[in-house]
């Protein structure tokens, strides 16, 4: 580490920690002190050593490493010959993925921060964007964002009890634990009613009018299927198709292809009333819908008899714990629930929510989780 600028080395190193902080790495004072101590040990003459010492003391996660590399290069000049950064494109993160910029190497400091901010806001804009009007690149990013969703299953009270810090005294466990201590009275144990995940049934309309949303909704369904809760997924349109099993494939792309193979009525008409009746007769009344949270994804453009749809939804409402109707058009300006199907269905639904963007999908999952 030469100091051609004439500044003392501590100043240069501390300046580097400042630059790193400006680039978004959370560098605290004690971390900076640790960095100085570490560089003193490895010696300033060894650029590779300084690089590693900084990485070990200043970074706290793989997200920081890339930024660290860029700032290091901008601050100390050429990084050639130093250990390389991590090839990040193959890693799957839980965090919302940012689009990879074309050539991040040329920017440093402020410019870099601008890029990250721009990328973050692009993802944020996408969250509120209507799924129907997206191009292929935006869809790909959306798919990754849907994959990162972690749906929380609704719960119900179970018959069993579970240990707890307070609550009713658990006589059996208290006695048993004192038995283990040769009859000496020991700690009093408590218990409460356990909770188990409630069943979730998703009915997804795949008719022509819902076509722009079908792909995103199936991906959302896949994310829900991958949780611990018992989940069943059906597509409705002119036919009723159970696609739970194909959706259990872990990889979303393959799951969607398999589900697609099962569904015979893509982008067909809508006979919600009849398919709902078929669902209730074949599955629902036998127990699948009983006490479950049933979510219907449909715009309510009903070709059949709206009276039948109303009757069936009333039946469903009596069986299910909660009925949630998700309508993609609800989130749009000037929407009025005047379609015949919706008018017939609304009195029997517990929740009527929008479902056109990632943000609204998150709200749907929230409603389902709280049901």
């Amino acid at each position, binding site marked *: 580490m030469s100091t051609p600028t004439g500044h003392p080395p501590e100043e240069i190193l501390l300046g580097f920690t400042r630059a790193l902080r400006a680039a978004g790495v959370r560098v605290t004072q004690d971390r900076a002190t640790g960095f100085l101590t570490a560089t003193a*040990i*490895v010696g300033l003459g060894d650029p590779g*050593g300084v690089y590693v010492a900084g*990485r070990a003391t200043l970074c706290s*996660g793989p997200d920081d490493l890339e930024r660290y590399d860029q700032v290091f290069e901008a601050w100390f000049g050429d990084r050639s010959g130093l250990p390389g950064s991590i090839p990040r494109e193959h890693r799957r993160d839980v965090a919302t993925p940012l689009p990879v910029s074309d050539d991040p190497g040329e920017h440093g400091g402020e410019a870099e921060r601008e890029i990250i901010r721009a990328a973050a806001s692009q993802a944020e804009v996408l969250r509120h964007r209507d799924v129907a009007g997206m191009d292929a690149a935006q869809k790909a990013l959306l798919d990754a964002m849907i994959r990162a969703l972690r749906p929380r299953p609704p719960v119900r009270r179970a018959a069993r009890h579970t240990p707890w810090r307070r609550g009713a005294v658990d006589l059996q466990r208290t006695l048993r634990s004192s038995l*283990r201590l*040769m009859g000496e009275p020991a700690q009093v144990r408590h218990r409460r009613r356990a909770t188990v995940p409630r069943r979730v049934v998703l009915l997804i309309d795949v008719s022509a009018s819902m076509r722009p949303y079908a792909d995103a909704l199936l991906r959302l369904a896949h994310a829900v299927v991958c949780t611990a809760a018992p989940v069943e997924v059906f597509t409705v349109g002119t036919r009723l198709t159970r696609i739970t099993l194909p959706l259990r*494939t872990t990889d979303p792309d393959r799951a969607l292809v398999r589900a697609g193979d099962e569904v015979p009525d893509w982008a067909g008409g809508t006979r919600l009333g009849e398919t709902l009746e078929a669902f209730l007769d074949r599955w629902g009344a036998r127990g699948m819908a009983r006490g479950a949270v049933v979510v219907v994804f449909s715009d309510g453009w009903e070709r059949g008899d709206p009276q039948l749809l109303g009757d069936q939804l009333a039946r469903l409402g009596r069986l299910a714990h909660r009925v949630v109707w998700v309508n993609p058009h609800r989130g749009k300006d000037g929407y009025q629930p005047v379609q015949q199907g919706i008018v017939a269905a609304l009195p029997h639904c517990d929740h009527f929510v929008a479902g056109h963007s990632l943000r609204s999908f998150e709200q749907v999952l929230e409603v389902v989780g709280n049901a």
Partner: protein
Amino acid sequence: MDSPSAVSQALGQTGYLTDPALATVVFLAERMQRPLLLEGEPGTGKTALAEALAQLRGVPLIRLQCYEGIDASQALYDWDFPRQILHLRTLEAATRDGSLDPVDAEKSLFDERFLLARPVLRALRESPSVLLIDEVDRADDEFEAFLLEVLSSWAVSIPELGTVVATTPPTVVLTSNRTRELHDALKRRCLYHWIDHPGLDREVAIVRSRAPEVPDALARQVVALVQTLRTEHLLKPPGVAETLDWARALEQLGATELDLEQAAATLGAVVKYREDTDRVRHVLDRMLAR
């Protein structure tokens, strides 16, 4: 050991091959007496590093496997309650005449022999030692806060006995698979290192050193194939541990060179998901066609 290259060399003698960056971090951790926090994909040798460090120094490796709900009594110490009760009953029986001094009796209850030392306390007492806190991301936030206390003061206070202080701080290695973000306060006290999958040459060297029975040509081919698989967007990309398993499996079948049919038959050693198996079969087919 007075330089990173010396650390690297010494670790190499135990069969653990490092890159210069990791050797520097290990060197710094020792000099600065800071815990080492290792993160990385499963199977990249995080736990193996702790084992190698213990072997290298000739000190015991004390391992604390974290899990959901782990608490201080499983990490620090616990009193052996049944034995204490037995002891009390024995005292009662031995002194029927009522000559038992209550103060003495109580004092004898909290004796060293009734103390069950758990890993952290053992590491402090048996120091110098290597304390491996494995998969700390599986434990809860409360446990992290508790670790923080121990890792900064290197002391554990037992109200009935007094404080146990380590004469020399043990070498602490924490590993995490990043299933959960650790608290920043814990990270700040550690030296952080991300262990990545090794490059081709290093991985070949690792296979040669860990599984010397595997023929040279086979080792190189297996490693090259695994490195290709890591770019194939698998659900669980194979780690070094899987490479070693696969090389050993093929060697057991008597292979001296990579034979794609045998490779397909032993896929279970490398990929553990059905979807991944399908995808790898496609890759193998492509290579066969070439």
